[in-house]
């Protein structure tokens, strides 16, 4: 390498001087990193901005409360979808959060057991499955099988299958953060293992566990493909678990594939609402996470 110092200074020995070529490389690398970062931010701003610009005209109070109308009738909104998404989140959360937490507790607290590794592996494999495949599976199992027709419960089960590995893996990471010295202290006090988990480990990790649950709910709220094959969608307000139910992503899909400009605007409006809900959840998470540090 050519030893041509940029600022030759007799005070700095030659082998400690920074050569010109290194300075150029430094500039190139930093420039590339800045460009890539700017592109990523620009993409995010563009998408968000476009959704806001296109969606905002659809937003008024009636948009949130009314049910979709047939084309030609003025008005119509996403009321049933909001209700349906809330119902689906509640039911799928009630199924998936306990199962995912139990799996995480098992993997972390009984990691020496021979089943821990298979449990973790299967959680990772389920997390890697395309959600449409989960939809097809639940469709075959419940829609064509046990229930016999499209139903809200089938949608909730499909979302739960997607949520379980997310909950399991996030809670696993959170439980690992609980210092083992606390488990030791509790064990040394003569507490049985299950009580150490319930009384010491989970309360210590409660903020993280809450974060994991909300994260999984937010993720499932945006899922579309498995719901197409299970919950189907519904233009009417419904909370019946055995009948088709509306959901925000389904409503966006339905409005968007129609050939009417008015419905396209409504699709953008519904998208804006979905993005806002998930974004608000993300912000809430930040607040919770910050409280955990305390």
């Amino acid at each position, binding site marked *: 390498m050519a030893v041509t110092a940029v600022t030759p200074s007799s005070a700095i020995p030659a082998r400690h001087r920074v050569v010109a070529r290194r300075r150029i490389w430094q500039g190139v690398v930093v420039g590339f990193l800045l460009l890539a970062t700017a592109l990523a931010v620009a993409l995010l701003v563009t998408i968000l901005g476009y959704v806001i610009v296109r969606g905002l005209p659809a937003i008024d109070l009636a948009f949130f409360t009314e049910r979709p109308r047939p084309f030609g009738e003025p008005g119509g909104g996403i009321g049933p979808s909001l209700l349906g998404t809330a119902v689906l989140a509640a039911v799928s959360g009630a199924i998936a959060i306990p199962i995912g937490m139990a799996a995480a507790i098992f993997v972390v607290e009984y*990691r*020496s057991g021979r089943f821990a590794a298979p449990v973790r592996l299967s959680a990772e494999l389920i997390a890697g499955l395309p959600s449409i495949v989960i939809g097809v599976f639940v469709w075959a199992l419940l829609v064509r099988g046990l229930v016999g027709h499209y139903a809200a419960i089938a949608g909730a089960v499909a979302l739960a299958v997607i949520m379980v590995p997310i909950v399991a893996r996030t809670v696993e990471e959170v439980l690992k953060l609980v*210092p083992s*010295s*606390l*488990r*030791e*202290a*509790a*064990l*040394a*006090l*003569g*507490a*049985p293992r299950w*009580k*150490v988990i319930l*009384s*010491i480990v989970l*309360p*210590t990790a*409660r903020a993280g566990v809450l974060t994991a649950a909300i994260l999984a709910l937010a993720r499932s709220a945006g899922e579309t493909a498995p719901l197409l094959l299970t919950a189907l969608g519904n233009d009417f307000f419904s909370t019946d678990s055995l009948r088709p139910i509306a959901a925000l992503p389904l409503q966006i899909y339905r409005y968007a594939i129609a050939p009417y400009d008015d419905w396209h605007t409504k699709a953008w409006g519904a998208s804006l609402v979905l993005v806002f809900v998930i974004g608000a959840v993300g912000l809430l998470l930040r607040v919770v996470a910050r409280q955990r540090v305390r």
Partner: protein
Amino acid sequence: MSVTMQETKQRETPSGAERTSTPVADPALPAPRSIALRTEKLSAYYGAAQAVGDVDLTFEVGAVTAIIGPSGCGKSTLLRCLNRMHETTPGARATGRVRLGDVDVYAPATDPVEVRSMVGMVFQKPNPFPMMSVYDNVAAGPRLRGWKMSRREMDDLVERNLRRAALWDEVKDKLHRSGAALSGGQQQRLCIARALATDPSVLLMDEPCSALDPIATYKIEELVRELSHEVTIVIVTHNMQQASRVSERTAFMLAADDGVGRLVEFGKTDDLFTLPRDPRTEAYITGRFG
């Protein structure tokens, strides 16, 4: 104190009668003392690697016994074998016998949870439960064990044990603040109070002062001497001065070339530090290694 507690206490201290008559150490008149804890050919392993080999030790009721030795000599592992905490490390196991009063600690029928109920443990780094208040930390043991106690009885228990740990005066106005907000020395005394709250007959201390400053260390040592009148104490330390200050008997351990920690010498602390019988002990206490 509730009925449940008294029953528990009687069960946990089979030698309680002797304990009250235990005199303070007097080398001139060695009083016969009963044995709180005894190990026979105790060996400990981490997977295939042996860490402790064939240790025979006796711990007298109401005395402070120090276990000293350089890092890696197996002294902490030995301590953790005494209440079956060793086996909570994945892959770890122990062989040989440990007798705690009349209890055969490693008998197949013995439940490790019950063993740990009879023995208190204080760790190297203060580890109060961070989401619990000072009060709840002391009450944690009884609650984790499901003792049925009224609010008043629990208040009394918490105050009594904070006093035993010489912490009451410093925390009585902040009982319901987080235990993690105390200073390091106070946290360690809180951990001692927590360990005492379930009335153990033996208290194991694993280098309890190694994370503390000299003043906090002094307070803990003072406390150890105080407590030795009511509970049998085994203290692991790498600090020889500490061993000579607090203990009546000292065990010196050393890891051989095969990495297995063995007992080199065991005797009265004064004798071991002034007239060591084994040249390796002499080399260690005179600072030639370790």
